[in-house]
């Protein structure tokens, strides 16, 4: 890997870490499960961009793209199922507050 590529990776990595921190903070701080899901989505965005940048700087763009396509497919399934679960939780509890889930049994 040459110096220019390495600098590109570091520049992208800097901002990817920022996005990652924002997503993690969102998940840890909020009590709204919908907002926690948005935080998870932000985390995934950081990972997606990191894979693409790693593929770009190592010259393996094709492999990185296939990995990202797989990641996106699984991500959308996770998000759709989680959204359905959230709607069900809301209909059951009447709230999106994660503290209400403490009454779960089992």
């Amino acid at each position, binding site marked *: 890997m040459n110096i220019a590529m390495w600098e590109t990776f570091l520049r*992208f990595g*800097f901002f990817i870490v920022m996005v990652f*921190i*924002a*997503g993690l903070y969102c998940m840890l701080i909020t009590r709204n499960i*919908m907002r926690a899901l948005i935080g998870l989505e932000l985390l995934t965005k950081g990972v997606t961009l990191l894979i693409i940048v790693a593929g770009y700087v190592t010259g393996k763009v094709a492999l990185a*793209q296939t990995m990202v396509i797989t990641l996106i497919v699984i991500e*959308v399934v996770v998000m759709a199922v989680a959204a*359905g679960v959230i709607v069900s939780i*809301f209909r059951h509890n009447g709230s999106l507050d994660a503290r209400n889930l403490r009454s779960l049994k089992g």
Partner: protein
Amino acid sequence: MTLNTILLIIMTLMALYTVVARSLLKATIGLAVTSAVMTILMFNLDSPLAAVFELSVCTGLITVVFASAIALTKPLTHKETIEVSKNKFRRYWYLPVIMVLSGVFMAFSNIPSSLFQPQAAAGAEDVRHVLWNARQLDLFGQIIIMLAGAFSIVILFKEVRKK
């Protein structure tokens, strides 16, 4: 300052807006804009196929899924909104501070750069070749996950309709 740097700054700012936005719908829109900016970055990094997926699925489909879920859940009452707004600043003012401190730390720390150097992955010339020839078992798993997701959604919404 290059175009990529400007886009990265916009992406980070939109991610920040997504977290601190008061309305869930605005947060979802912020997420969609983050995703759209990321798509341009992917095009710049020679990954057009992944960028198209990102734009269509993450910017489009996931935003619609989130908006639908928000629409199906009850909005906060006026009293709850005031209560949340009061605590909002107190809970979220750390985030910009943490982000700035992390940025300063990363910019000025002497972490050995070889620690984060990505290793060269398996050789692949063409996306189509990798997607259809180099991967077989994990594609099977991916199809199972997609079917599981589809069935889960059907079951969840069916139960909701019954009630």
